[in-house]
């Protein structure tokens, strides 16, 4: 251990006495901070005077939510059951204003809901038919339970039922209103004795990836859905027939105020009754708020866009720290001074990893904290994240730089020639990230970000991806295919394999 301490100290002295390496390390901090504090991004939140702030409703779990839908409801107390039959869902999509689509969005929703109140962000439980994902039970924004697949037509209508018993809400579906199948049960948080019960319809933003030549992007727009219901009935404790129409969170009016609203196509949002039949037209979503093309604003990941430039620097410093010794034959002096070559490699790994970790930590911490302020100052909506996530993003950025530099050092040891090693390291680590962020279509990009060392960028994902929320979960919007530490494990795996190969070859080879 004492011998390792001496070797470690020697390698640290080597590192700090080459001006270029020290400057490179300072530049790593510099580019991360510079990119983070000078974002090109502008927004309109809070820039148009008081009232223009972008404030999102907060759900029962403290997370930010989207809560926009058309609601036909009444207040009911105690336990009870509500049933309805859904006979049709039709949609209007406005992704291309010249050519409105009539397809129903896959995550358009129409069904029954029980809510703590009409206020946005209220806790709830709902059962619904979706445009493309069958029957679902959802509650409190983030929870989603699948029922039977398939949509709804006049020939094959769907019966839906919600039953409240104390704190528990049970959802059931039926094809004939006679034989019921339970979809799920939920205990929405803090459901009061009197709840708002009724029908709802809503349809999220449409978005799709766009690839034209070397450019890629996203296009989309708001959509709406119309659900046609009949046989709306309450029983087993709930009585009442005074159904009241509302559009919750209407984009052009005060939330929950008017009985109607203006839809994205300029047509009416709201409800119409014709005898027993009720048509509900809605637009929006009842779901956790997400950052990205289909959502609003950006995540804190956006502040760390400079990481890839820093990564190039870290990779170069990591490689040259070892390849420069081979170039000059200095490696013989090193091995004459410390004959245990694995010990030398371990010391170099510790020095490079430690330096890059400290540099990355300082840079990411400053940038995440200050960069958010700058973005908000520019009117960009930045999704707040829990402190734990913020710490993971900061520490993860440091770990990403450190382990990438260690991988580069392994390549430098293996290949010995600086230019070859730097090129290989950049091709392996930085290029997959750049391609995935820019020109590659989603599937290829996601595949690259699973298998290449760039998978570790998952550490920077700040917002969770919800499968039940329509959005483009692209790497460019800060969504990565692997879980944060799984992505890191991919990079660490690469580094471990390359280091092991480097240790073996360097032991066998004549210096």
């Amino acid at each position, binding site marked *: 251990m004492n011998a390792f301490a001496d070797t470690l100290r020697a390698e640290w*002295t*080597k590192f700090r*006495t080459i001006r270029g390496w020290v400057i490179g390390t300072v530049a790593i901090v510099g580019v991360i901070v510079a990119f983070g504090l000078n974002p090109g991004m502008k927004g309109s939140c809070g820039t148009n005077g008081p009232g223009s702030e972008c404030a999102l409703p907060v759900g029962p779990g403290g997370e930010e939510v989207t809560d926009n839908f058309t609601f036909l409801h009444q207040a009911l107390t105690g336990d009870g059951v509500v049933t309805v039959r859904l006979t049709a869902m039709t949609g209007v999509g406005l992704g291309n204003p010249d050519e409105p689509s009539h397809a129903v969005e896959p995550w358009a929703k129409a069904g029954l809901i029980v809510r703590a109140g009409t206020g946005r962000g209220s806790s709830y439980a709902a059962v619904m038919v979706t445009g493309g994902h069958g029957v679902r039970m959802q509650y409190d924004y983030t929870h989603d339970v699948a029922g039977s697949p398939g949509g709804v037509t006049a020939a094959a209508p769907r019966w839906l039922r919600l039953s409240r018993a104390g704190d528990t809400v049970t959802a059931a579906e039926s094809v004939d209103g006679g034989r019921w199948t339970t979809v799920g049960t939920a205990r929405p948080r803090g459901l009061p004795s009197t709840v708002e019960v009724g029908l709802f319809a809503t349809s999220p933003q449409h978005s799709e990836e766009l690839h034209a030549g070397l450019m890629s992007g996203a296009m989309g727009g708001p959509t709406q859905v119309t659900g046609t219901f009949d046989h709306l009935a309450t029983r087993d404790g709930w009585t009442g027939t005074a159904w009241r129409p509302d559009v919750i969170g209407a984009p052009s009016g005060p939330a929950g105020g008017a009985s109607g609203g203006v839809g994205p196509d300029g047509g009416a949002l709201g409800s119409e009754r014709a005898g027993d039949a009720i048509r509900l037209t809605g637009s929006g979503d009842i779901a956790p708020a997400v950052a990205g093309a289909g959502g609003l604003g950006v995540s804190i990941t956006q502040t760390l866009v400079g990481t890839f430039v820093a990564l190039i620097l870290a990779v170069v410093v990591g490689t040259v720290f070892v390849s420069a010794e081979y170039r*000059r034959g200095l490696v013989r*002096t090193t*091995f*004459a001074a410390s*004959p245990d070559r694995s010990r030398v490699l371990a010391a170099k790994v510790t020095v490079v990893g430690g330096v890059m970790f400290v540099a990355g930590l300082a840079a990411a911490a400053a940038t995440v904290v200050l960069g958010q302020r700058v973005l908000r100052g520019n009117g960009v909506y930045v999704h707040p994240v829990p402190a734990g996530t913020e710490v993971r993003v900061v520490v993860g950025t440091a770990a990403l730089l450190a382990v990438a530099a260690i991988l580069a050092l392994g390549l430098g040891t293996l290949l010995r020639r600086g230019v070859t090693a730097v090129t290989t390291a950049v091709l392996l680590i930085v290029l997959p990230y750049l391609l995935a962020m820019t020109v590659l279509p989603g599937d290829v990009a996601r595949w690259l970000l699973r298998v290449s060392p760039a998978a570790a960028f998952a550490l920077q994902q700040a917002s969770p991806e919800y499968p039940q929320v329509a959005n483009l979960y692209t790497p460019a919007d800060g969504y990565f295919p692997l879980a944060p530490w799984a992505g890191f494990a991919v990079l660490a795996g690469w580094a471990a394999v390359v280091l092991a190969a480097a240790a073996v070859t360097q032991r066998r080879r*004549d210096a």
Partner: protein
Amino acid sequence: MITVNGLRKRFGATTALDGMTFTVQPGQVTGFVGPNGAGKSTTMRVVLGLDAADAGEALVDGHPYRALCHPLRHVGSLLDAAAVSPGRTARNHLLWLAHSQGLGPRRVDEVLDTVGLTSVARRRAGGFSLGMRQRLGIAAALLGDPPTLMLDEPFNGMDPEGIIWMRRLTRELAAGGRAVLVSSHLMSQLQDIADHVVVAGRGRVLADASVTQLLAAVSDGRVTVRSAAARAAAVLAGGGGSVTVAGDGTLVVTGLPAEAIAALLSRNGVPFSELAAHRATLEDAYLELTRDAVEYRAADPAAADPAAADPAAAAPAATPGKAL
């Protein structure tokens, strides 16, 4: 002390070491000479654990180099003076080496003083002349105050003053009880500093002897006498010598020491104008021993190069040895 025993190593089809065996004893300078490709540098790299031998062993103070905890405290070596980071200062180069041996900056300043680099210690080694780099390499070798030193071609690139300094330093180190191995492809450089010489050729030891023994082996006791007297040859032959008449009144005598020849001629009243004992140099011994072992022998210039026949276009003759 270094013990090299039966080292063998091949690089592809080339045999670099072919049973190299010798010992470097403390208290003396051991010269390690041989033409290019004789295996001198390879032997040193094997001693330092840098190259692995196919067979045989090299021990430092009885241990394999890789088993030494702070090896620079056992052996100091200078292999390649160019092996420094050009961007690092001389002092920092020595500082990381010192740290690797558990030594501090004070020792660095001491060796800088020893080799006379104190004034340029904070300058980047990239700007050093080869001679200054040799001094820096010597400083690195001395860092751990080791009982054994191994210097590969330390005179390369040095100016005359540097060569004098280096010769004095090696002698002083040996006088202090250290085992010093100095390699060179030029025997003449070792003439006055080596106590013992290991002559290598084609990966083998051709001779391993003290300088005195080596000279005696080459010297054949010839004495040249110049005398106009016709009876000189008869007198010397009668005295027990074997005489060859070389013409011009020059006789080459063997079998009699120079003093005996002088006494014999004087006693018999034979006048002579010159009496010279033929003394072999280390260079002679070396050339004699390595005659068959030179890897890259210059072809006979006259035969190989038609231009050499023309005295006006005489090309400098190639000599076996590393270009400086």
